[in-house]
């Protein structure tokens, strides 16, 4: 028997984890349900699944396609789509937007190449050239730029789709609800967050949230997140048992409108999301936290995204 097997035999929970989500700055959370963060079982089936639901997700792609000295010129593509689920469970696209653009520190480029870029690329996102000499940090900045533009695109699309939302129709987003005040305040929107770098809880509450059993949710708490600082209500929901994996396995944080109605319906909404576990969102790497319809939107966007015609070296990639 290995030492860790002995440890499990002594009462430790078995695990199989290697890495976790990137840490983000902590956020403040105020409980709006219960006096202390509690664990609530989600109601038994059958869940009340809204007849019509739209799902919003987006993708991003970028790669360095040219060098001007050490200046890295990036080709980027972002896209987002809303797909509505009909009564038969089939998804149909209702809104879709994309943007293909170049990212470059124009002021650091040589005149001829800058001119060539400006003439040939219809959409150029300028970035600061201070980090050009530090390629790794420069690329981190590029990545952040792409994420920011994608988030902006998704927010615009979400706001646009709210206008088309049916009377009983819900909109489920992949990610933060609080990016857009309009979306965050809508009574029939939900955000499903898979990344848990930002920590809202601490102490006993945090432990309860991270060791949440499958089929349970935490008490609802209020968070003020995103750039808009719009307050939303949130809670954790465990979709799959984490034992034998890692603490975040199957853990989703749900965001909904900051309203007493959200607290009242938190269990009902959790039961709905619990029912969305099937079909599995495989082969996505984080299928345990990804709802299949959101995965489907992502696959749809990937299928429609243009291929990057990169000039490749004949040597093997490093």
């Amino acid at each position: 028997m290995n030492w860790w097997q002995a440890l499990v035999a002594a009462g430790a929970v078995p695990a199989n984890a290697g890495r976790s989500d990137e840490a983000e700055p902590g956020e403040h959370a105020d409980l709006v349900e219960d006096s202390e963060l509690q664990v609530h079982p989600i109601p038994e089936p059958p869940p009340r699944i809204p007849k019509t639901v739209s799902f919003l997700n987006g993708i991003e792609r970028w790669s360095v396609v040219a060098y001007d000295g050490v200046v890295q010129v990036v080709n980027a593509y972002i896209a987002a789509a809303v797909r509505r689920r009909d009564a038969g469970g089939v998804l149909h696209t209702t809104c879709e937007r994309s943007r293909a653009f170049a990212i470059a520190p124009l002021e650091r480029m040589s005149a001829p190449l800058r001119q060539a870029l400006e003439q040939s690329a219809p959409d150029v996102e300028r970035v600061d050239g201070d980090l050009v000499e530090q390629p790794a940090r420069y690329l981190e900045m590029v990545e952040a730029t792409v994420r920011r533009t994608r988030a902006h695109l998704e927010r615009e699309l979400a706001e646009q789709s709210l206008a088309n939302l049916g009377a009983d129709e819900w909109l489920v987003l992949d990610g933060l609800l609080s990016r857009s005040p309009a979306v965050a305040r809508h009574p029939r929107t939900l955000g499903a967050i898979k990344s848990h770098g930002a920590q809202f809880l601490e102490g006993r509450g945090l432990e309860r949230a991270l060791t949440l059993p499958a089929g349970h949710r935490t008490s609802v708490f209020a968070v003020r997140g995103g750039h808009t600082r719009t307050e939303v209500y949130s809670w954790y929901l465990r979709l799959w048992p984490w034992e034998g994996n890692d603490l975040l396995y199957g853990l989703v944080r749900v965001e909904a409108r900051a309203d007493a109605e959200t607290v009242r319906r938190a269990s009902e909404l959790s039961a709905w999301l619990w029912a969305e576990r099937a079909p599995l969102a495989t082969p996505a790497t984080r299928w345990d936290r990804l709802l299949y319809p959101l995965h489907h939107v992502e696959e749809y966007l990937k299928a429609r995204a243009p291929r990057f015609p990169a000039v490749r070296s004949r040597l093997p990639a490093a």
Partner: protein
Amino acid sequence: MIDKATPIVIGRVVATELKPATPHQFYFWTATDTSIGIGAIVKVGAGSGEPGAERVVYGVVTEGFAYSDLATPLHDVVGAEGDPTRAEDAPTTRQQIRYWTAAVLRQTPEEPLQPVPLGQVYVADDTDVALALRMDGFLHSATPTAIPVGLYTSAGRDSPVYLDADFLLGPEAAHLNISGVSGLATKTSAVEFLLASIFAHFPAHKGRVAALCFNVKGPDLCFLDQPGDLSDEDRRRYERLRVPAEPFKRVQLYAPLKADGVNLNTLRTHPDLVDDVEPLTWGLQEVVDYAEVLLNRDDIDAKADAFIDFLRDRVLGRTFDDGFGTTHRVQTFGDLDRLFRSIFDGLEIASGGRSDTWRTHHIATMRKVRNRLLNISTRCKGLVTDDGPSSDLPWNGFEDRTVYVIDIANVDPLGQDLVFARVVSKLREQLERRELGVDAVVVFVDELNKYAPGDGPDTYVKKMLLDISERGRYLGLVLFGAEQFRSQVHRRVVGNAGTQLFGRMDMDELATPGYQVLTPATKSKLATMPIGELMVRHPHFTQPIFIRFPKPPVLRGRDGVERFPPAADVPFDEAVVRQLVRLDRRVRPNQVKDLIADREQDDVRRALAAARRTRPDDVFAYFRKVLGARVDSESSLARERHVVPPLNPISEEPY
């Protein structure tokens, strides 16, 4: 004839490095809810306005796949938590694909031959079907040769499919073979419909056509002149194919007589129909010409052949001295037996039993030939007459668009072989001489497994079928063969069939090498094919095509015997009366009965056959004249001694 419809986009060609489009095959996907299936004809390219759309490719769907984005089956189990009943509860339907493989039927332009373009896929309309199957060449030419074979009904279409008469009935190619399991009436029905279609559409410039069918099973082909029940859908199909939905107007049914020599050996003996049945009886001359048929493999040797040739050339129909003082004129089996007895007696008496040859022929050879020849008159009594003239098909007067049916269902297998061999040989002879009366004859033979098996001895019948298959198209002698197991029929017989039809097939049969060119989906469709549907292979079609044909406009055999129950055999005198009345309505039954009372039945049969053959104005007078004066009892007894003695057909005697 051809409807031009608006193209309907139903899919799109896709190609990957692993599954590229080629000049002969391509892949496409459709919506999950699509009207196409295995056997559907599709068109790629035209109408899309895409680059390369000037190239049009026609294909037939040969395989279909459906799958979802499910990574492994285990993930479905996990999603449903191991409970299959919960699998349906998933609120979102997985993304699915309907992915089809199509084999190219035709490309335009045909040169240069290129891979199928990655364009939109359309359902083929009537015009497309005609082009895809290369029917435009013979459908719209100055001398059209199109014969409707059925309707292409996949993908909600209803397009006529035609065969090229030049490739169905010669001279370019010919013959048709149809396979399928028994009991679904598909094979016989298909041939009946196709014959009706040929009669309706056989091009005038190709002359006259007739069909000759051997009825080898029950009442299958006995009611081709009687109307069957057709549904409105069937009638609509007939209209679409421009084939009259009515039974054959001209049918001649021939059946041998039973052993009594007067009742017909057929199931079409209902009083309302029996008058249309002609007796088929042959005498010695007709049998000796095909004596090889009667000899089994062990019998075939040069000595027997030589002796049969001797009989044929020197004895039959001639005045002949046997060398022992007796002169013979051999015209009947009775005469032949008397000759043999005279020879055997002569050898015994003249040489005291020491000589065993007569005119270089060994006595054992003569005994063997005698037994074989005289055996047939016993085993096939009714078809072969001991003595008396024959009643035969009109070898010089076949009529246009007429079906000749020979009912040999109840005839001894040896007799069936004899009928088969003689009829087909005569057809060939007459067609060679251009004296048959028609330019082409379709010969329908069911149970090819039996007559032309892939293994076993080379019988006369098999050799003859091979000969028709390989050379008949030049003469206009066309074989329509049917069998249950195509793999068990001689390869050259089925291989020479230019057109091949397949009904529902047995899975074991489909597992044989002959079907390896078909995809699993096509085999699966063949194994579950409904009645009235066929897979067609024709020289102009580069891939097998599925079609639907209407129910034949004739009464099916089993329905026929229900509607027209066969009559019981009638007494000898009554049967004679009926046959004479049929020839001449003025004949009075009592007169006939009085005339034939106490007369030898053989004499009556002979007189009856003569009346049938001659068809005089005054039948009764002629019959009375041929029958002659009443023979007294003493003469009658004397004659008894010369009657051919019955031979035991299962005799252990080696010769």
